[in-house]
């Protein structure tokens, strides 16, 4: 494998993959570890990647699989200690009002995204933050492009509900 070529792949995509993992995982340490793992796996398999492959989508797919595995083992760990992570619940729990008031809307959205079910969070982040198409998102999540789109839309609905619940959305002007 050409070392120089892989260097170019790293230079082009490491920042983006790291940001993606930080957003979906949360902790910077875990995101650091998983972004390393993403590129180590990519390095091992790079020689067998077809020449016309979409390297960016492929890297997102590796990172997404690692993120899913990470959460699976997190859940196992939590269960072992008899805990249920609030972040994995299906419903969006608004943060306490006092906390909300002191935070920016962006941070609130961030919080809502972190509490989304995993597939919605991954699909939303890939689509709305990194601009991947639904085909690529579907491949990384192991579902169809339509399902990937449904996950993104569901996430947007929940974000809207979450912001609305705190009165942070503009009201329609009176005519």
């Amino acid at each position, binding site marked *: *494998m050409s070392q120089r070529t892989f260097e170019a792949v790293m230079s082009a995509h*490491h920042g983006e993959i*790291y940001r993606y993992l930080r957003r979906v995982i949360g902790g*910077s340490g875990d995101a650091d570890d998983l972004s390393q793992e993403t590129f180590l796996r990519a*390095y091992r398999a790079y*020689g067998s990647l077809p020449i016309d492959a979409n390297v960016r989508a492929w890297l997102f797919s590796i990172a997404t699989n690692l993120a899913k595995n990470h959460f699976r083992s997190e859940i196992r760990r939590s269960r072992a200690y008899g805990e249920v992570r609030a972040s994995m619940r299906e419903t969006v729990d608004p943060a306490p009002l006092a906390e909300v008031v002191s935070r920016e809307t962006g941070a609130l959205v961030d919080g809502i995204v972190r509490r989304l079910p995993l597939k919605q969070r991954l699909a939303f982040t890939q689509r*709305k933050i990194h601009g991947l198409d639904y085909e690529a998102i579907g491949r990384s999540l192991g579902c169809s492009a339509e399902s990937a789109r449904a996950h993104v*839309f569901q996430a947007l609905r929940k974000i809207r509900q979450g*912001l609305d619940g705190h009165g942070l959305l503009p009201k329609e002007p009176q005519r």
Partner: protein
Amino acid sequence: MSNKPAVCVQIEDDLLATAMGEAVPSAARRVERHLATCGSCRREFQEYHTVDSVVTTLREEPLPSGSLAQAREHLEARLADLRSRLLVYRIFPSPLGHILIARSELGISLVEYLERGTSLRASRLRHEPGVELVEDRGELEAVYQDLLEYLDGRRKRLEWPLDLRLARSDFHRTVLQATAALPYGAVIPYAGIAQEVGKASASRAVAQALRWNPLPIVIPCHRVIGTSGALTGYAGRKVGLKQRLLSLEGVPTTKRAGVLGITPQAMYILYPGEREYCLPTCPSFDTHPPAPLTRFASREHAEAAGLSPCTTCRPDLHPISH
């Protein structure tokens, strides 16, 4: 349960898609018509716009200072470690049986005759600590073709970059480096290599180093033989392969009393340190002390190694008749 009118529920997905700029034109027109008559959907549409603009700010959110550079640094370190341990391998059929070839980032690191099967399970790589293996998808094809050309006599040199890290010790590496310099069509006793590496009495240790040669054929340990001219061992008990490789180079071999050996009287001789090759009957040897001799299968091979004919015995005028 939602108390939205049915028409609003039906258009919900299109409304969201339109707000996000992803709707097809016909859906966007349908939404536009609906919004003109429905206040609550208009509000919802604006809210999605707001959500979209908030999400845009997230996209541009800066990372904590230095975190990306630090993550990149960690990645570079782990990748450097992986590169140093990663071997790309493939198992090929050959006239000498199945052969595994492996390469690292530095060069070819293993050429292995597989005795007990045609899979990685039969390879010594399974027992190499710290090595990570990836099956080749084409990188080794050119190397394999070179090897096939060598084995059918169309090629005399395998000019591959080599990685000797699979050698078992520094001494083994030194022995392998000395052996790598042996010319095509020549043989030398173990004692000759021992002398070459500055340990004249270490013939047995040299034989052990060559027994574990990770790069047979390309590091031509088949050109190293016993002082008596017997082929002795090769990669364990594969002395038949040694004979085949030597025959390919034109080295004459015979079996005497059940032992395979070279035919010394049919080969030209080089005394250590000399630059002239001789006939085996050269009178100048009478005055030289005994020493491990290099023998050449032909004058062409000796001259290809940069040697000239002896001016005393004149092998150029009286070549050995085969």
